[in-house]
């Protein structure tokens, strides 16, 4: 069966592997900065330490899953 993930003609497309990698690095940077800001706020102004830690872990874990999915997709289509 033909793999649809490997079917992009990058030469004919504006979306080159470099663009995909650039997109990945930009969203990783945005997420990292945002996670640091969220972490600072929840740990500084939160009312419950355990709750804040758990929420931060869930947020970073979820974000890491999305970033991992992006990595897998990039490797699959390039």
């Amino acid at each position: 069966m033909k793999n649809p993930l490997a079917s992009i003609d990058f030469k004919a497309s504006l979306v080159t592997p470099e663009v995909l990698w650039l997109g990945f690095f930009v969203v990783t940077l945005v997420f990292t900065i945002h996670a640091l800001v969220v972490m600072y706020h929840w740990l500084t102004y939160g009312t419950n330490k355990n709750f804040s830690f758990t929420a931060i872990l869930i947020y970073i874990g979820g974000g890491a899953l999305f970033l991992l999915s992006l990595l897998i997709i990039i490797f699959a289509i390039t």
Partner: protein
Amino acid sequence: MLFEQIQLETDEKILLVVRKHWFIPFTKIFALASSALLPLLLYLLLPTLITTIDTTSFVDIYAGLLIYFYVIWLLLHWIALANILTDYYLDLWAITSRRIIAIDQQGFFRRFLSSFRLERLQDMNISVKGIIPTLLNFGTIEAQTAGGSNEEFKTANMPDPRGLKALIISAADARQEQINNPNVTQQAHAGL
């Protein structure tokens, strides 16, 4: 954490920490979830809406790219969800045995913290407007304080405004009595 920064006075006890009603973040999260699922909905509906173009083959050819962009879309929604929950979690009223601390968090870099002492409480008003606030019991609570500036503290969408008003008035009465008669403990009068 918050209360270490506020530095409660000796004998000052936290009676209640109250955040906005759950319905407020729920509506935002619902809108966010709808937006996150929109591309999937378009993917399902597009073939029926546009019959002149063969959208199935387009999706097949660019499946990898579409998934790539959809994951980025979901990640941006994940970030927006964190913003909504941060706003909800950090926006609160803390009612202590001595004062009311109102914190208004607007985004990450705008934060207003105001407090007034219970003995300065002059008047409290609540208003519940609309069908949903009436059914779910949430509304606006307003506290006016005595003093030169005649300050007013107002927060919308607070849960159980009547109960909150009763608690604050009871705590304010207890505080006033404690000031008038320092030997009587505040808790005994407030019944809290």
